[in-house]
């Protein structure tokens, strides 16, 4: 009977850990699926592996403070540590291989609070749930024989997921940009702003570039890493700027579905200017060991009921532990070369 009591508690623990239910979707399985698709590059992020660190500040104009009590929206400056990247797990992928770029930001507020966000240069996310995201990863896994996903499996996936229609329609005409700087980056997931009265407002945010030259002109022939060079060149000429725009939802707008845009007539507030002043390679830069978990939020911003958000948080944490473990050469992790050995 004693053994039974102890075993029951131990089994409950194993169940909660997911050890006896391997079919349940866990952060570990999502990151494994990312690795299965791209391969393992020790020390690098399991997704958005290729990127560059940037730093600057956010200059709030105070407008958003009506809707969120977060200090970052009071008039003034907040330091920002960011990262531009390409989606996918291969840190050596050519910049022209995907038409999407991402921009992650960490705002450091004065009292120890942080606001972290990961945005992408696309209007909607392909799928609405972590389960569908996992299925998409499995369906788009490259066939070892051809090195490309099996079109039949990909077709079957998208046929079963009509919610991906808006993304597919966009991606059909999307072209890889020649610059990180000329892109609009969308937060995609909905959040709540909490105002000083405690009232919540459903929002989505994006950053819109001031520089629009070269937008959509496509890659430079023969250069796999043209984005980093373009960024270096532009920053040598001066800081680069984006407007931080916040869209306020109407009461019936979905907050739990990143595949759907909100109608274009929704109120948009201009919260201020994001200024990027410098860049550093990610292998040695300060963004390397930052996990851009989009659920790390200051008081005054809360996550919505979007099911992708907790899944992103959980999977990013798993990826973060794998890559920092590799950097630390923890036994059992893949061997990471020291940062200086990275090409």
């Amino acid at each position: 009977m004693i053994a039974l009591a102890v075993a029951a508690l131990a089994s409950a623990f194993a169940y909660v850990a997911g050890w006896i239910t391997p079919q349940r979707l866990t952060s570990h399985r999502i990151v494994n699926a990312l690795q299965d698709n791209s391969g393992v590059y020790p020390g690098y992020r399991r997704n958005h592996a290729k990127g560059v660190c940037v730093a600057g500040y956010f200059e709030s104009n105070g407008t958003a403070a009506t809707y969120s009590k977060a200090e970052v929206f009071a008039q003034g400056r907040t330091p920002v540590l960011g990262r531009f990247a390409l989606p996918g797990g291969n840190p050596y992928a050519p910049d022209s291989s995907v038409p999407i770029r991402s921009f992650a930001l960490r705002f450091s507020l004065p009292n120890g609070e942080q606001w972290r966000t990961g945005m992408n240069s696309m209007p909607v996310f392909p799928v609405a749930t972590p389960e569908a995201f996992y299925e998409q990863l499995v369906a788009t896994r490259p066939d070892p024989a051809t090195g490309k996903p099996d079109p039949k499996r990909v077709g079957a996936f998208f046929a079963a997921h009509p919610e991906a229609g808006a993304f597919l329609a966009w991606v059909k005409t999307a072209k890889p940009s020649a610059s990180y700087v000329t892109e609009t980056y969308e937060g995609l997931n909905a959040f709540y702003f909490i105002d000083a009265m405690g009232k919540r407002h459903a929002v989505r945010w994006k950053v819109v570039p001031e520089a629009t030259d070269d937008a959509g002109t496509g890659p430079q022939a023969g250069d796999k890493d043209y984005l980093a060079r373009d960024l270096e060149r532009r920053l040598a000429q001066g800081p680069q700027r984006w407007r931080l725009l916040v869209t306020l939802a109407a009461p019936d707008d979905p907050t739990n579905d990143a595949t759907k845009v909100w109608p274009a007539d929704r109120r948009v507030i201009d919260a201020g200017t994001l200024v990027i002043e410098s860049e550093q390679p990610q292998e040695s830069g300060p963004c390397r060991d930052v996990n851009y978990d989009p659920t790390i939020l200051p008081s005054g911003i809360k996550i919505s009921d979007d099911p992708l958000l907790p899944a992103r948080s959980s999977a990013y944490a798993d990826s973060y532990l794998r890559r920092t473990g590799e950097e630390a050469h923890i036994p059992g992790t893949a061997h990471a070369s020291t940062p200086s050995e990275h090409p």
Partner: protein
Amino acid sequence: MNTPNAFHPLARLLHWTMAVLILAMLFIGVGMVSTVSGKHTWLLAIHKPLGALIFVLALIRLGVRLRFPPPPLPADMPALMKFVAHASHWLLYALMLALPLVGWAMLSAGGYPISLGGSLHLPPILSANGETFAWLRESHRYLAYLLFFTVLGHMGAALYHGLIRRDDVLPSMTFPSRGMAASAAPAPVIVTEPTLTEPSPRPDGAPPL
């Protein structure tokens, strides 16, 4: 014989409160890192302030233990069993104090804000360093497994004392009876005594710990 035959009521209150909190904490921890559902968010939000609370309670409990020494183990217990009992109790104390500190250090090294809810934040106790984070994060995991196994052993041993040996060990932490340890001097702990009263003075001659 002047040593108490049961744990001080405050020690018992702390023991059972922390038993619930620590078990909950272990399940919250192992659940929140695996799940990708909405539970991840609120489990993570509970984990940090609960860890801080357990740390504070563990410090208080250590003080209570030093002030009110626990009852001795039954004299007829084999020496090895006594050694394991003492060692596992100190291991439990060590882990109750170490896990929250490792968690705090780990979040510091990861560059994370250490939120206890709302805008209440603890300061970092280490500078941000990914490699340090990884070591601390893995330590946090394996120390938590060790704590869970020690708790399982502790529970099994308590049941063994209560159901098989039927000695005074289990009642000394639950409901000590008046007649318990009849050879002892008048029991300092009265069964009907409410749990949270002024600590009764230490019986004369108790070891000055």
